[in-house]
């Protein structure tokens, strides 16, 4: 079995250790005997996005976000084709924002998003950001569990039709927002750094299954020893008072 991951703007949207997510997908896939490849793609580079099983994009500073958004918009048709062909999406922070209608930064500059979803993001002023450890309750593909991450965003994302999770501790899409991220059958979009996947192996495995679905249908994954992962997560859940 093969799993092909496309890591968009690996060299620009690379804040907060988001690259750790690709590392986790690679290792957890390979432990199941899956042949995982990760290709990168930056500004101006040709890739046929629909060839990939998973599209991954991380977060970047405002500066970097400003640099990549035109390139991203120029790939809109290709991304739409990939969505139709069943590619799974994992979008963190800036990646999350740019799949919505627009992003307005601290100075009032507005950049268009891809507009695949109805949510939009407006930045709060420079001195107010949602920063800190965050815990969510997530129901993903029929499985309900708790997860942890670290949020650090000025952007306030509104009009989200189906959030990724319910906030148990922390902010979420807006200050004390109650809900975090966006999710549908194919897309996971979230502000959760940490990075997201190391401490949340269930999310990682569901994403692998979603990506494999494109070519192989429903695939069972062999259970792995997640003692370290679970300890790391539970220590934070306990500290946040939600375990």
């Amino acid at each position, binding site marked *: 079995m093969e799993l092909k991951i496309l890591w968009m703007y690996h060299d620009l949207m690379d*804040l907060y250790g988001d690259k*750790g997510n690709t590392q986790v997908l690679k*290792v957890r896939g390979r432990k199941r005997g899956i042949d995982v490849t990760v290709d990168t793609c930056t500004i101006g580079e040709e890739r046929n996005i629909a060839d990939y099983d998973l599209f991954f994009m991380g977060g970047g500073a405002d*500066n970097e976000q400003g*640099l990549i958004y035109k390139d991203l918009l120029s790939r809109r048709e290709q991304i739409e084709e990939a969505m139709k062909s069943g590619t799974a999406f994992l979008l963190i922070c800036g990646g999350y924002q740019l799949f919505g209608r627009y992003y307005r930064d601290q100075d009032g500059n507005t950049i268009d998003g891809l507009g695949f979803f109805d949510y939009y993001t407006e930045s709060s002023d420079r001195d107010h950001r949602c920063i800190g450890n965050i815990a969510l309750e997530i129901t993903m593909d029929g499985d309900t569990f708790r997860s942890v991450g670290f949020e*650090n965003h000025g952007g306030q994302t509104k009009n989200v039709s189906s959030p990724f999770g319910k906030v148990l501790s922390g902010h979420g899409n807006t200050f004390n927002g109650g809900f975090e991220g966006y999710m549908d059958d194919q897309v996971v979009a979230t502000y959760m750094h940490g990075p997201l996947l190391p401490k949340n192996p269930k999310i990682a495995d569901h994403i692998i299954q979603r990506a494999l679905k494109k070519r192989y249908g429903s695939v069972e994954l062999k259970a792995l020893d997640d003692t*370290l992962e679970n300890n*790391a997560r539970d220590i934070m859940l306990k500290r946040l008072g939600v375990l």
Partner: protein
Amino acid sequence: MDLRLKFVQAMQAILAKTGHGGSLPGTFALKMDPHFLEKFKMPKTVVLVTGTNGKTTTQNLIAGSLREAGYSVINNHRGDNLNVGIASLLAANSDSNFRIKADAAVIEVDELTVYRQFKNLHPNVMVVNNFFRDQLDRAGEMETIIRKIQEVTEDFEGDLILNGDDPNVCRIADTAKKARIHFYSVARQEESKTVTDEASEGKFCPRCGRRLVYDFYQYSHIGRFHCECGFGENTPDISVDSIDYRNGTFTCEGKTFHNFLNNIYSVYNCAAVLCVMKTLGLDYGNADETFRTLVLNEGRNEVFNLSQPCVINLIKNPTGSNETMKFITSQPGDKNICILLNDNDQDGHDVSWIWDAHFERLNVPEVKTIVCSGLRAYDMALRLKYEGLEDRIIVIESAAEAVKWLDQQNMPSHIMATYTALHSTRAILRKEAKHGA
């Protein structure tokens, strides 16, 4: 005569007798009088040092060099670089009329809060050594930090000493129109690289937005860069020619200098010092004497004698960690490693930076076991697990137990500790060390 100053100084005298120092008196002083810092009459020579990595080393080397040159100097030698630490330093060294009793003050200032102290300290020399990603949850994006430094240096009329090999630092020259700009730089070495997996900042030209072209990298994004718009065409005042790691020296302007810690970032720290000496018209020999003799413990390659030598280093961001790992793996022979990861206020609450650091470099056969310790020990363990080090990691959350474990193995060891873990662990090591450090 100011009663508040008198009170703070009395408090310092009592604390000093009981072996305490630190920022407590400064905290009181600023509580009683928010304008406390404005009142000091600073000496004629005031050198500020700021940036991400190497501030404490650089300011101690500058202070040492000025002392060698005959100045009486005060400096916040332990790196207490927030306003409370600086208030403590000034109070401890002033007469009852707020006059600083020294020829020169060398003060390390935190890059995020420098704008609060800058004017009060009346600097005539300011050194900016580098900008790396560091504590994003506290600092915000690097753009914010650079803007803050640009704001304070906009009207600065003194000497601005800048690392000419860091594009983010060079940006400051563009906005500091009134200052006299001095760059320092290090020439291409055998060890310089044309490709890198370490550079995460400085990819684009701050003037025109084009992708910067690098002839070579020294470490992280530090190296020789240029842009077709002309950005990066700087003439350095101090240029290091060659580095000889075998003998622990480097050459500059035809002279040979001792390289303080014998690594690339130490060369940059030394070059900054030489640039300050040149600007002040002082003899480089005084700097070389300091490079040769200064002992800077406090967890910078500090050795403790456990059953076998144990070297402790501070880690706080990806660049510093990468350089520390290069040092550790360059040491011959088998070794154990202990990584202490905390997430208290001073460490930064966000530990995601460990995923930006190249911990896969520890995946060499000489590294036998890696003990993960501290408040976020399991996060560290996961970082290593996903680099294929699963079979070599153990988790011992308590630092005291971790040190005990290292001691029992009878093998040389290295400890990498974040800020708040560093001081407590050094205390444990002092107790465990057989013959003192």
